[in-house]
């Protein structure tokens, strides 16, 4: 009996209806958290953090570039793990999350590439340098686009989900390999600034706003993931009674 109790949350988590109703309640709060974090981080980082000794004010783009890159990379793992959960436990919701994660991750990767190029001009004197991390972010963008393209080629939803899940899993095995191989012909890029172990090599006055921005980007990711997934749920579950009820209810209210 105890086992049943423990697993009900997992199965409830797999119900699109439950997810739709819960996120409706969570979204306003989460958006508020996101706004607070992002506004605080941006104002703090852009206006109050001290300028860099070598790069002056141009370093401030770090407050967009680094969070976008981190969340883009983490987003790929999220997508692949959601795909794996879908393949193993056959949870519909998991596939919907996977599908929603792809365009968000691709957009964040694109932001990371663009801000990196803008930052590169004053720092290295060129918009584009074939350095290790830029190149692996570019490959990451192609991996995301591949998953999206594969997802859209199949008309059968179930097959499309599984194919995209397999591809993102293959990609997940490859992401560290790609990262390391590209690192191997490493050139200009400075080595990692934030390390999980040991003190960061940045001054706390510069580092704290970055942490706030990273958290802000994570909550932005969650908010957009919820919004995308809710749209996906409505699209896929449009034949179910609860969605029909929801729509008619909304129409009557208006």
């Amino acid at each position, binding site marked *: 009996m105890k086992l049943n109790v423990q697993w009900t949350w997992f199965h409830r988590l797999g119900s699109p209806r439950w997810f739709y109703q819960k996120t409706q309640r969570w979204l306003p709060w989460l958006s508020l958290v996101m706004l607070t974090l992002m506004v605080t981080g941006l104002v703090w980082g852009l206006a109050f953090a001290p300028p860099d000794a070598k790069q002056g004010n141009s370093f401030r783009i770090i407050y967009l570039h680094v969070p976008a890159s981190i969340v883009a990379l983490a987003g790929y793992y999220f997508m692949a793990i959601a795909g794996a959960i879908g393949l193993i436990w056959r949870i519909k919701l998991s596939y919907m999350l996977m599908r929603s994660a792809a365009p968000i991750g691709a957009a964040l990767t694109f932001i990371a590439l663009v801000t990196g190029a803008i930052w590169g001009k004053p720092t290295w004197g060129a918009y584009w340098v074939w350095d290790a991390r830029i190149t692996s972010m570019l*490959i990451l963008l*192609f*991996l995301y*686009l*591949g998953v999206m*393209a*594969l997802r859209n*080629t*199949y008309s*059968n939803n*179930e*097959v*499309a989900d*599984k*194919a995209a899940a*397999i*591809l993102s*899993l*293959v*990609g997940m*095995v*490859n992401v560290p*390999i*790609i990262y390391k*191989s*590209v690192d*191997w*012909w490493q050139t200009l890029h400075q080595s990692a600034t934030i390390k999980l172990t040991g003190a960061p090599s940045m001054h706390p006055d510069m580092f704290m706003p970055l942490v706030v921005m990273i958290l802000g980007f994570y909550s932005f990711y969650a908010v957009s993931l919820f919004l995308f997934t809710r749209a996906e749920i409505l699209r896929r579950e449009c034949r179910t009674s609860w969605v029909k009820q929801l729509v008619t209810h909304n129409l009557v209210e208006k």
Partner: protein
Amino acid sequence: MSNFISGGFKAYLYRDLLLSVRDKTDLVKPLIFFLLIAALVPLAIAPEAQRLAKLAPGLIWMLAVLATMLSIERLFSDDLNDGSLEQMLLSPNLLIMPVLGKVTAHWLVIGLPLTLLSPVIGIWFSLPSVAVIPMMLSLVLGTAVLSLIGAVGAALTLPRQGGVLLALLVMPLYMPVLIFGSATIQSAVDGLNWIGPLAMLAAFLAIAIALCPLAITAGLRLAKNG
């Protein structure tokens, strides 16, 4: 028991090789493509030996990647069209072995001839002769990885018969092979130790042999339904 495991491998290896030998145009097309694109390079860049020699390590590997990718498209599509893929999926054997047999046949028909032809390209691009053996070794190992990864893409894009989608799926996954493949040749040209990058290619091959068949078989099972 041994038949259960290895039977499918031999049968499909033999079958695919036989099919390639009977239809010789299939066998020759990627090789002609390989040589043709290589011949375009001096025309597009410059027929100067020095410049070409500098570009040679990377160019040879790019050509190998393109030739493999173009030929991998048909690995499963003919079988899907004539129904033999369905037979393969229905067979009681472990599906991994027939798949590995088919990929091995593809490598024997594409990767190996490319490797044997590569000294010609080396001569065209004035590659120093010390780099010829490392180049061939890197191509032997690397093209096998390319065949395995390509087969994953071919299986996943089967209902659409490959095309640009296949390139989009497979190219990013090819990057590490490309990096270490050309690094092997480049190290040999520079007089450095080229065993390191070559060992990385061998490691990629070991990982790919272990993991790619899982993804290929999963993709084929999907393709039948999709």
